[in-house]
């Protein structure tokens, strides 16, 4: 065999396998399709949403795509920078950033961006078409919360209707609640025994609705204690609550025509520490031998300690909280318990003012509406009427 033929055969022996190998390496994964980039809806204007159709090689074939990389540039021909990576099978990504200009991940609002998606299969990758321009804009209304707005509106309408009816003098029926009916009896007992009343507003923050309900009830009870000349002790867990309680009680005494009987030192801040506060209140109960204890507000683990100590001291106890976990303890250990919203309603019961009663009736009607919707929802779920569920979904 001539040297030339030998050289040619040797070349073939080496080159053929190489050709076969490089053919496999040149098969790139299929690129993602139909890439869309648009302003993320219902946000503060620092996010762009990117959607795409999965690569044909996603989870299939030898060139199985393992991840997608999201790339962004400020022009279609510009330098594309990676913004994130998602696993195979994912076809959505929200490119988000900070709203503060001095943060490293600041995302400018109103700037046009262009996106492409890179499908990666090991070392190989292929890019989609460039999508854009898209710019982030803040929205002035969150469409996903429309259901909440509608219900708020319906509730406001109920409130206005019933307040109007109450103001016109219509008698609004509200069911009797044992705990509220017992308030007069409890205050009378303390007056007869010549012992003070203890009012505990709980451990909530001043802006908690239970705390607000508590100091509105305090004003009614303080007015009665002013009329009966029974001392009322209000140890407070929060300094702001203390200021509000002092103002509330002072006004109640003023309304009762007994401003001179008001003693500011009876309403004081103890401590904001939970069990230190409980220890202090227990001490007051046992030393002052309070005849009546009111526990109205937000309570936690200390509820039973307070109630049992009051029981040891022989006090009549009326409690009320919206903390569901503490309600059983109050039910077991106190004489009367206001459960959940009964605490919020108590102020209306005690004052019997038309405006407050009107709001209470509105709550009842709103509850009726919710009951109807619950039954409808249960039926819809049973019959697989998905549109009903979708109608009431809220996208935060």
């Amino acid at each position, binding site marked *: 065999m001539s040297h030339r033929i030998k050289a040619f055969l040797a070349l073939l022996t080496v080159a053929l396998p190489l050709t076969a190998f490089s053919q496999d390496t040149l098969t790139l994964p299929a690129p993602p399709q139909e890439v869309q980039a648009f302003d993320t809806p219902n946000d503060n204007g620092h996010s762009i949403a990117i959607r795409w159709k999965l690569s044909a090689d996603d989870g299939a074939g030898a060139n199985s795509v393992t991840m997608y990389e999201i790339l962004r540039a400020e022009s279609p021909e510009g330098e594309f920078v990676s913004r994130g990576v998602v696993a195979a099978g994912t076809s959505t990504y929200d490119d*988000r950033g*900070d709203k503060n200009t001095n*943060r490293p*991940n600041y995302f400018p609002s109103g700037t046009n961006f262009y996106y492409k998606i890179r499908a990666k299969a090991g070392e190989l990758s292929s890019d989609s078409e460039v999508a854009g321009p898209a710019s982030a804009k803040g929205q002035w209304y969150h469409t996903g919360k429309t259901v909440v707005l509608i219900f708020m509106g319906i509730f406001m309408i109920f409130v206005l209707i019933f307040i109007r009816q109450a103001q016109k003098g219509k008698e609004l029926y509200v069911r009797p609640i044992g705990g509220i009916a017992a308030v007069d009896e409890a205050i009378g007992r303390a007056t007869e025994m010549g012992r003070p009343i203890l009012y505990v507003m709980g451990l909530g923050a001043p802006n908690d609705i239970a705390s607000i309900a508590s100091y509105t009830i305090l004003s009614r009870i303080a007015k009665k204690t002013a009329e009966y000349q029974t001392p009322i002790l209000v140890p407070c867990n929060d300094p702001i609550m203390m200021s509000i309680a002092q103002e509330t009680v002072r006004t109640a005494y003023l309304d009762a025509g007994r401003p001179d009987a008001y003693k500011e030192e009876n309403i004081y801040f103890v401590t*904001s*520490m*939970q*069990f230190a506060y409980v220890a202090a209140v227990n001490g007051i109960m046992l030393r002052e031998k309070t005849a009546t204890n009111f526990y109205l507000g*937000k309570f*936690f*683990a200390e509820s039973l300690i307070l109630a049992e100590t009051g029981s*040891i001291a022989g006090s009549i106890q009326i409690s009320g909280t919206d*903390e*569901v*976990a503490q309600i059983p303890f109050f039910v077991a250990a106190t004489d009367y318990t206001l459960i959940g919203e009964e605490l919020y309603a108590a102020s209306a019961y005690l004052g019997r003012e038309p405006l407050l009663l009107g709001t209470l009736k509105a709550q009842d009607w709103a509850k009726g509406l919710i009951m109807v919707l619950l039954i409808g929802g249960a039926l819809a779920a049973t019959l697989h009427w998905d549109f009903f569920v979708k109608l009431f979904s809220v996208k*935060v």
Partner: protein
Amino acid sequence: MAFYEKLMGLDRRWVYLSVGIAVLIPFFIPFDVPVYTTPEVKAVYDFVESLKEGEVLFLAIDYDPNAMAELHPTARVIMRQAFSQNVKLVISALSQNGPGMAEQLISEISKEFGKKSGIDYCYLGYKPYPGITILAMGQDFRIPFPSDYYGVPLDSMPMMRRIKNYDDVKAVIDVTGTNAIDFWLVNANARYKVKLAAAVTGVMAADYYPYLQSGQLFGLLSGLKGASEYEVLANQKGFAFSGMRIQTIAHIVVILFIVIGNIGFFISRTQRKK
């Protein structure tokens, strides 16, 4: 006084004495109590077990020293499980008296596993108004916590360079004896869609089953029992597991007193009918 009247009206000091003795007995006669694991505890264990090395878990230690007995074992066992898998931890302590106690626990366990602050974990510390803090962390941890508990800026920590907010953590596990869990549910899970599990005191647990059912919580540990179940699953039988025997005896005593009270009540009713 008739016997049944005595049964109904026992001086509460006898009750306290009996409970006191019942709690002391297991210290002198140690024995093991079988612990049955519940699906809600297993869900949390399985989730932490599934985390890969380098992934980030947010552990919120939101309780005061008064809830330490019930909740410390939970925080301890979860932290040990996470560190043993080289999972990174971001830790907060949004309870007023909790930060020092949490710091002690973190120091103890990080030393045990050779973990370093800023590299393997970041302890953010305490900020008042947990609701506002949790909300702000949804945007960026640096808003309420520009630096960690030790005063080190978050931006200077290697671990925190790629961690901005809840999007960068796999889940939040809130260990709490306060209403902080309510803020986590509303401000983190509902608003920012971060996966959330809770470890609460036994008293609070009944309150949070609705959230477990609705999927807002993916797991729930209830007091010392939950901690003991987790210890059994993680094969780290410790304080919680041994605490179950004390809890068992105390419960038996309470049940006995309820039965005694009702026996007296039934007899007195029968006598009155006669």
